[in-house]
């Protein structure tokens, strides 16, 4: 029937979507461990991340609240704009498939050791398609549930780790053993792009986000809360595992959860971590899929009803083809994807677009 409230998301929904988005996979992996003080990297990357968000806010302004894709067409011209739209759609689909691969790796190693890869991936792809096809308000409501679950499970993990006396704050020392410069470098080169830079997806649904100032405030609040939770997660991982072990663990929170041992009664809480990542990745992929479908349906005009399912299956297929094994996946994600995809598409291209807009339409004409 007719909608009584058009398609504006309520502020709480925007906050929880962004929060789960930022936490999604980073809470499990932790920050890339080029430097032992991972938690410091987290704290410091708040500043560049906020600057990046200012760039995105500038883009929101420049697009007169129409979103990323119309902005690209306006700045670069119709055909180049359409090509760039397609680029971004593919980029979002690719990130979604990388996230699905992350989740699949974790689930395969902890829960389903002997199942062939395809089956859980297909199920997950169907779920993501169902979630994305519901539209943005439905994703908003889903995100409130998922945010509550993720934070609840994370706090339960922290509490259980505390009670099993696995936390030892001495493992945080030595502090700044490799110098502050390395921390800054690591934060600039890796930590900004992976959780925080992906916020560029939210530029796609600017029309649904409501007032600009409100959105900026909510964005900032969600950045700060995500940063706090990620820092806490890193501290948890370091104090439980120790700086040496954390270098060798891919799923740091999982390894930390395995240290839970309360009176030899509650042990092996891998399932909690699997829950966190499944729900987190579900929401992330739903958002990416929604953005990709929006982009593709601008370039290939179509009624996007079945596009969600096809693209979700594509993302699932790509997730199996993305890398041949887990090690390659991690290495690719840490270096090549960042330099090859994230930096150009999250930073250089938006910067270029903004400059073009300022040059071509100096007084803000339409």
């Amino acid at each position, binding site marked *: *029937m*007719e*909608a*009584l*409230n058009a398609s504006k998301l309520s502020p709480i929904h925007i906050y929880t979507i962004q929060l789960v988005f930022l936490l999604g996979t980073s809470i499990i992996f932790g920050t890339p461990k080029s430097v032992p003080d991972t938690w410091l990297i987290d704290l410091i990357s708040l500043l560049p991340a906020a600057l990046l968000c200012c760039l995105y806010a500038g883009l929101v302004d420049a697009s007169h609240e129409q979103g990323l894709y119309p902005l690209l067409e306006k700045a670069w011209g119709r055909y180049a704009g359409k090509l760039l739209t397609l680029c971004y759609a593919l980029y979002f689909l690719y990130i979604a498939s990388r996230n699905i691969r992350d989740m699949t790796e974790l*689930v395969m190693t902890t*829960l*389903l050791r002997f*199942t062939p890869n395809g*089956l*859980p991936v297909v*199920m*997950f792809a169907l*779920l993501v398609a*169902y*979630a994305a096809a*519901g539209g943005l*308000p*439905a*994703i908003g*409501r*889903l995100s*409130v*549930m*998922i945010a509550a679950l993720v934070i609840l499970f994370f706090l339960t993990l922290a509490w259980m780790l505390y009670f099993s006396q696995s936390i030892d704050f001495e493992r945080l020392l030595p502090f700044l053993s490799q110098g502050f410069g390395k921390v800054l470098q690591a934060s600039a080169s890796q930590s900004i792009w992976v959780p925080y830079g992906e916020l560029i997806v939210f530029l796609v649904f600017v029309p649904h986000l409501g007032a600009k100032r409100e959105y900026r405030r909510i964005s900032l609040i969600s950045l700060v809360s995500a940063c706090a939770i990620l820092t806490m997660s890193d501290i948890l991982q370091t104090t439980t595992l120790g700086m040496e072990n954390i270098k060798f663990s891919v799923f740091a929170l999982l390894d930390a959860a395995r240290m839970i041992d309360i009176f*030899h*009664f*509650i*042990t*092996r*809480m*891998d*399932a909690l971590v*699997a*829950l966190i990542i*499944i*729900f987190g990745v*579900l929401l992330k992929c739903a958002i990416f899929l929604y953005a990709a479908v929006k982009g593709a349906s601008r370039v290939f005009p179509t009624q996007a009803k079945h596009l969600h399912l096809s693209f979700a299956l594509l993302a699932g297929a790509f997730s199996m083809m993305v890398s041949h094994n887990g090690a390659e996946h991690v290495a690719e994600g840490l270096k090549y994807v960042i330099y090859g995809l994230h930096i150009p598409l999250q930073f250089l291209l938006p910067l270029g677009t903004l400059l073009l807009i300022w040059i071509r339409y100096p007084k803000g004409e339409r």
Partner: protein
Amino acid sequence: MEKSNASHSAASKIARMKESLELQFGHSDDLALYPLRVAGQEGLLCFLTTMTRSTSMMDNVVKPLVIQDLSGISREEDDLMTHIRKHVLAGLTTQLTDRSEGLAQKLGLGFAAIVLEGEPNLLLIDVKDLEVRAVSEPTTQNVVRGPKEGFTESATTNMSLIRRRIINDKLRFEKYELGEQTRTEVYLTYVEGEADERMLDAVRQRLNACSLVSLFDSGSLESLLSPEGIQLFPTVYNSERPDAICSLLLDQRIGVIVSGSPFVLITPALLHDFFQSPEDRYQWFVLSHFVRTIRYIAFFFSICMPALYVAITSYHQELIPTMLLTSIAAQREGIPFPAVIEIFLMELSFELLREASTRMPRIVGPSIAIAGALVLGEAAVQAGIVSNINVIVVSLAAISSYVAPIYSFASNIRLSRYALIVFGACLGLYGVIAGCAFLMIHLSRIETYGIPYVFSRYQRARNKTTC
């Protein structure tokens, strides 16, 4: 000559009417065609004896007509029928009509018709007086503290139960007649100013588009008022309690009363409504919140527990604490079936028990309870068909499913439980999580008339109901 001619044609008019009515009703036994004599004219009183009571007919219609001598009434102002209508039968609902085609239908609706020789018009009088069940305690949705009145099958009684609680001139009742063969009275209820106009129009449209042949209970209307698609979760709330319905009507909802059904519908319904008992408003708010949290947890348990049991004992035994694991393993030692089959056996026998205890005549009731407890409990375990832990899991899930105050909600959820068990059996914990994720996504997607099912602004009651 004229007079005799007139009387001749009038007599044949009455005789004709008598014949045609008897033909239409097939000489049915309850068709009453009594000759009358009013103001010197021959007349006919027709009605269905099953639609009214003889005392009511005598007191209200026959006595006033027969006692007064109406022959001397002057015909200047009104003709005889209008005079009878205004003076003799004042206070009753009457209609004057000059067409005799729709007479049978009117008789079926509970009208009585007076036909006089010399008068061209027929007088229809509403004499419907049916036996109704007395207002008693509702059979579902019990509360410890709160009013114990329940709706009955008569729409008039139900409307009166609502009207006496919402003493507000803005309370509206709109009548519809649905069902081609049954012509059931359906009343749309709302408080003007509270319910949204567009939602009202949408509901009216749906009621007008109803193409049911027969309508006996409000349950048949539920699918009419729900959004399209598979309805795993009910989007129409139904209740037997007037206080629940009234508080929802004051909360911007729309009610539908169906004559013949003690369950009044409310649309749009939110997930929040299905976990709220009217008692929550009459108790201390902390207690209400606590109990409501218990209800949500129980709902979650009742769906997931059997599936989790299957998944964890089949695939992820390491999640169970060691001591419990050894005892479970010992219990499941001699069981010939895998966990899935065990759970399905127990669930299906619980369904049988549930269905049998509902349909069984009340006299034989206790024997079913004994048989069920003995067979499903002790005997099955001792025979080595199922294990103890299995019985515990299934019974806990079954008990938890009845914590939700609305029965139709619990029934809908039972199906998702089976789906989750299958998922858990195939893909272990991942399958259960995926199934739960599917339910969560489905919940967040449901919208009735644009109102979302969860986290809607309709959830916050606009009117303060507790101090």
